[in-house]
């Protein structure tokens, strides 16, 4: 896909996701991690390069594209403050429909994956999205090396990257991710022995 069509595809995807994910959940973290899952789990060709940070898989280009979408009035971004800090709320902008139309061909092609992402993750909190995407990142890295992980090992590695979560919580997420068929490096035998 050439750069111009890729931009249109990304803009359309953003407009689509932001119009479908419940407003209470839809912020920058949700958008970032949805792009991650769509690309890395479902193979949607977004052209991003995600690497790991303490806040999960991240590519600054997603936020750069979000800024473009805001500039085009396709998305409205508002900072939301609370007692713990802040987040961002994303809503459709006045040109949201136009942007989606520009990339309609892309949305049609990947409709199943988009539906899956919204259903699978749409109601999750940002912190859970960070944790789950981190765990899938660890899993995919291992799978890329041909490594087989147990759920325990996946839990330990994820906890190294997200130490503020309790181990029991991460372990429960690992089992859940396995049951949702989101893990490639954890085989049935390794999962059953956990």
């Amino acid at each position, binding site marked *: 896909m050439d*750069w111009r069509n890729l*931009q249109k595809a990304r803009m359309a995807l953003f407009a689509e996701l932001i119009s479908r994910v419940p407003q209470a959940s839809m912020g920058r973290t949700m958008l970032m991690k949805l792009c991650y899952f769509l690309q890395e789990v479902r193979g949607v*060709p977004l*052209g991003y*390069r995600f*690497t*790991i*940070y*303490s*806040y999960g898989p991240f*590519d*600054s*280009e997603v*936020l*750069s594209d*979000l*800024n*473009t979408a*805001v*500039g*085009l*009035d396709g998305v409205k971004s508002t*900072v939301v*403050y*609370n*007692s*713990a*800090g*802040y*987040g961002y709320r994303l809503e459709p902008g006045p*040109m949201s429909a*136009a*942007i989606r139309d520009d990339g309609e061909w892309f949305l049609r092609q990947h409709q199943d994956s988009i539906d899956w992402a919204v259903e699978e993750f749409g109601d999750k*909190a*940002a*912190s859970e999205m*960070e944790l789950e995407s981190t765990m899938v*990142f*660890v899993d995919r*890295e291992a799978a890329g090396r041909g490594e087989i992980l147990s759920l325990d090992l996946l839990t330990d*590695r994820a906890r*190294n*990257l*997200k*130490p*503020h979560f309790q181990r029991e919580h991460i372990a429960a997420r690992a089992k859940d991710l396995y049951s949702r068929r989101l893990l490639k490096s954890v085989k049935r035998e390794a999962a059953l022995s956990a």
Partner: protein
Amino acid sequence: MGLDHIYEIRCPVHGFVALNAWEREIIDQPAFQRLKRIRQLAWTDQVYPGAMHTRFEHSLGVRHVANLLFDSVVRNSRALLESDLGYNETGLDRYRQLVRLAALLHDVGHSPFSHSSEDLFPERDGGGKKYVHEEYSAAIIRGPLRDVIENHRANANYAFSADDVAALIEGSAGAQKGIFWRDLISGQMDADRMDYLLRDSHHTGVHYGRYDLHRIVGTVTALRSGENSGLRVGIQEGGWHVAEALVLARYAMFTQVYFHKTRVAYDIHIREAMKAMLPNGRFPRPTELDKYLEWDDWKVLGLLAGGQGGEHGERLTQRKHYRRVYRSNEMMSHRDRECLEKLEERLGSLLAERVPAGRSKAWYKTDGSDIPVLSEQDGVARPLSYFSRAVSYLGKHDQVFLYCRPEDRLEADRIVKEVGGNGLA
């Protein structure tokens, strides 16, 4: 010399950069010395003649700044690092050295003329994505530099593997609990950005890139930005003005230097000239490091002098570079984009190249991420845009340039005038 010996190297930006014996031996390696033969800003000297600095001194500078940032984060937020990440004195000492090594080596995998040639990296097996220079850096660390990292006497104190250093640079899960420090190597306020802004400003003579490094170093801290969120690197409220200055410096340098119309034209030509020189138009893969490391600016310049590089090589040697005939608004509306598409269609074969500012994300990071600031009032993080009106209004630089061949300039200008639109030549 003993392991404690400090080697000082003069730096026009930082005064002196101090290296320990281990780091001194690392920079002596051929793979690191190669950075002396890779210019930081490619052909920017065609516009700003002083811009001849290399990746070598920039890498030393990043090492220097990363160390300052690390020490400041520890000083300003030790309790949080201990409670949230379980660090103790030994752990902190270990991570300090790890950050220093990663900062020193973060650019070791750069291709000739730096970012100009990033489009010439090969695709991974299975097609799709291209390699990036960080992956070459990681490969070099795991390859030719593995021995000097793992088997140096100083490593008896740390037991680092080459993988530990590579993981922090490439952003892989192998970074483990050290992942927190990645923000100092590659983040919104990383040591890389802090050094290159000052260094590029110094060598080009463009003062817009200057900001108060010492103030920003003094206020950097670890903080939590939201509920259930882990630690990240941010700024104490007392430093928000200088964080604002950093963001504005980045914006000014981008528009005045990195995205200067003539500089961009030379990027096009050097990229295409190298494409003509390289076997299959692509650099060797990270698995063929011996061949890759042969490529540096000197090799390319020698080939250019020998007449290689095709049409674009000739344009470089004879200064017949492409001319910009149109630039869009910095932030394009829907209507601006429609107008741009119309113009491109009308220009047809006269259009030699279209350069969107955001095309390569490696380009000096003009993304929209917002620096977290720790409020003095309630100890809670706020984005920088909460304090700084200038930052809140600063959008993304989304400008597009259209270029033609110099011989087609008159006709292209006529078409641009005819079509109109909100852009300018």
